[in-house]
């Protein structure tokens, strides 16, 4: 256990100190990994612990992103950067979750997919939201009076938020609520039969996951400086799913690995060949077929067995 804590500490220290040793492009890659990582981790809470497969997680990413984009130009403070996007995403998750959870299984997958596409349609054709081009020139916020536009300051800010979100998700999973989710995942019918109102727990999990996704979306807007309707595409949800699978479903920390694998693969492969999508699709298919435990599963010696 000591070894693991020390190892973890080293990794965190390396991540924090990264801008001091690396150039702007690698730092950007790392930051992108962190943002997508927390987005994927929120999806892992849903998928790996509650057993809910949502193909519409991008809806909350997009809601958070657009909320931040709209508000930051006028009020560049923490409320616009985090508070409002989180709240907006939570409300969205409450509504979509309430409508989607009462139908189970495959209907849930399709409904969540349709909802996120609906947001895509909404933003794509809406002039106020920038239509196809989205919203650009989004400034980074002021935190405690300081503008965090500089690379180093933004890095610390990003790490703090992503770290807090990750700690929150880890805490949930170890808490009584997390155990209930696992019970639901393992045997929903029995959980009902012993007296748990399962739908309520699922809804709460959905809202929590959606809120964290909204924060990720908002961070993404601040990171890039703009946002477009593509954030809502169902393929965005699919890519997050891919990250969860590659990293290892139901591990939480696998999300970092999955995001890293995806983003590094994308950036490396696309510089050598145009066939990036082919390789991605093939990787996905092969992982599902032969390594459903993901990278973490493989590291734990469980290739081929679901964790």
């Amino acid at each position, binding site marked *: 256990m000591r070894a693991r804590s020390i190892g973890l500490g080293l990794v965190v220290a390396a991540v924090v100190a990264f801008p001091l040793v690396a150039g702007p492009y690698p730092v950007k890659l790392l930051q992108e990994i962190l943002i997508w990582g927390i987005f994927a981790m929120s999806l892992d809470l849903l998928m790996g612990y509650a057993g809910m497969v949502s193909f519409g997680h991008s809806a909350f990413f997009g809601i958070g992103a657009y909320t931040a984009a709209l508000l930051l130009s006028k009020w560049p403070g923490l409320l616009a950067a985090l508070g409002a996007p989180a709240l907006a995403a939570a409300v969205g998750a409450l509504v979509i979750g309430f409508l989607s959870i009462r139908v189970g299984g*495959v209907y849930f997958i399709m*409904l969540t997919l*349709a909802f996120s*596409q609906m947001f895509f*349609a909404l933003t*794509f054709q809406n002039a106020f939201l920038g239509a196809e081009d989205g919203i650009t020139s989004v400034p980074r916020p002021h935190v405690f009076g300081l503008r965090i536009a500089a690379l180093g300051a933004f890095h610390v800010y990003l790490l703090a938020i992503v770290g807090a979100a990750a700690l929150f998700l880890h805490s949930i999973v170890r808490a009584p609520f997390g155990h209930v989710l696992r019970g639901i995942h393992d045997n929903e019918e029995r959980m009902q039969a012993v007296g748990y109102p399962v739908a309520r727990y699922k809804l709460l999990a959905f809202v929590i996951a959606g809120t964290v996704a909204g924060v990720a979306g908002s961070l993404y807007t601040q990171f890039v400086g703009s946002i477009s309707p593509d954030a809502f595409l169902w393929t965005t949800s699919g890519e997050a799913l891919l990250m969860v699978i590659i990293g290892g479903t139901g591990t939480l920390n696998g999300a970092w690995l999955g995001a890293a694998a995806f983003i590094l693969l994308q950036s490396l492969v696309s510089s050598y060949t145009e066939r990036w*999508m*082919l390789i991605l*699709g093939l990787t996905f*298919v092969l992982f599902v077929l032969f390594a459903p435990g993901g990278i973490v599963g493989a590291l734990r010696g469980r290739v081929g067995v679901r964790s």
Partner: protein
Amino acid sequence: MLVVSDVFAQALNGLAYGVLLFLLSVGLTLIFGMLDIVNLAHGSYYMLGAYAGVTVLMMTDSFWLALVVAPVAVGLVGAVVERLCLRPLYRRGPLDQVLLTFGLIYLFEDLVKWIWGGRVRSIPAPALLTTSVNVLGATVPSYRVFVIVFGLAVAVALWLLVEKTRLGAVIRAAVFDSEMAAGMGIPIDRVFTGVFAFGAGLAGLSGVIAGPIQSAAPSIGATILIPALIVVVVGGLGSLKGSLVGSLIIGQAETFGKAWLPGASMLMIYAVMALVLTLRPQGLFGRPLK
């Protein structure tokens, strides 16, 4: 000014689009009913059908030949995919299957770009059908009329197959309760592969028929998947009748939306979906949820 013939022309367009959606959604709904999986790669079969059409036309200049070859070719691809990729996953549950089909989307789309190039390829209508006809005062391309007639003929043939033949009874049994059907001695594996191939073939047929209307491009698969999914959700997963009714409704909704509410056209089908699902969460003809 609302002219009846304009309305009628739009309605015919909507009907043609609905027919395309129907051919596409039949496979989706049957596959779901039998295997409890949403085949997200179904749109890819539509796209492959269009490209198969492109190739056949390049080689033989015969649209009618393309109409026959494309579905067969795509059906074969579907059969191979089912045997190689999906069958190992049946034991593992719906999640893995859905995820795998998602990976296939990327695979197919890029494969198509690789083989045929990324730009749009056109599929000209056959010489016979390049004129316009006058239907009840409206001027409509004769090709659209062909699509409607052809599609409805397929619908009737399907209905006959499923309701009136022994094969159809087997398929219905497998769709309704595959465990029970297997227990009754039906070779479930072969039925699965067969229905999968059939559904893929129909999707391919839809793609090649749609060719003269919307051409072939690598993105058409992902684009048409969403309306097809909505059709299936609105009609009821597993119900052929639902597919037909759903696709007619969605076809009209999207066409009229584009014509009269261009600023919100993309939202029309979601509005229809939301309306149906609030009143009947299992879809119009779907099995009642527990």
